[in-house]
């Protein structure tokens, strides 16, 4: 392999990293993706993680601290002894 190709391969590799998941979960996913468009467990895990992150970000974006609710919960936390 030429140096240029090696460099490209190295660059391509660095776009991904390795994470560990429990083996039983890996096997469960492998079975689940049979007959679906997913060609590997990695693809499926990446898809699921992107979905989870998008949902979390969406929830956080929509979240507002309403003054009324804050007052209500503050009062309750005082009654429960969490706040003085």
């Amino acid at each position, binding site marked *: 392999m030429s140096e240029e190709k090696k460099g490209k391969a190295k660059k391509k590799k660095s776009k991904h990293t390795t994470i560990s998941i429990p083996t039983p979960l890996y096997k469960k996913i492998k079975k689940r993706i049979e007959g679906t468009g997913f060609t590997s467990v990695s693809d499926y895990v990446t898809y699921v993680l992107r979905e989870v992150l998008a949902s*979390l970000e969406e929830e956080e974006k929509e*979240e507002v*601290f309403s003054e009324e*609710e*804050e007052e*209500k*919960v503050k009062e309750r936390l005082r009654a429960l002894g*969490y*706040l*003085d």
Partner: protein
Amino acid sequence: MITVIAIDALEYNLVEEFNMRNLKQEYYGKTDISEFSEPRTMVLWSSFMTGENKEEEILAKGDKEMWNTRIPHEETFFSHFENPFILDLPGYNYDLEQHERERRLLKEFFMEKDEEKKREIRKKYNENAFAHHRKIKERFLEALEGEYDFILGYFSVADVIGHLNFGNRMMMKMIYRDLDEIVSQVEGKKIVLSDHGMKAVGVFGDHSEYGFWSTNFKELGRPKITDFKSIILSETK
């Protein structure tokens, strides 16, 4: 041998909604805590471990001193065991510094007016709670390998995180999933018990007026939190 997984603020309706099978076990339901004027953590766990309603005694200490309650071992049903392992239980041996840190950050959050700064404080508050949870989880799982005749592990994460994030379903589901997995690793007779549940106030969480129980050995109906002393002792005879 019996193991109690004591989970602060584990909410019946969320366990149902998320269908957490290990948290539910074979038998599950709500506890009756109507004899207490408010669902206060320190009062409820103190009443659980002694089998007596401790509300008057605990409230007499005042809001600040209440959190420093340490019920002597011989006044608890744990003294009926030869070698019990009790992990981080309020009113017995929980980490006071950790709890003070949580209350300090909670206060900071509510005092701050700037939205961005509030989010920063909440992030710190959440990180602190999750770090504590990881430590407790590790110690609890280690204890399962030990030679104990009774194990109780107390998990505060659903309560602490819930107070500032209960409206974040995704985050709550991740917490419940983790707790569910912890329960799945316990062998033998086990009880999952909460002091009270939690209800949403917008993005925040307030204590609900009932607790959660489940067992893998007995139907309990709608027990009081003070009933668990005799339930546990009769099962371990």
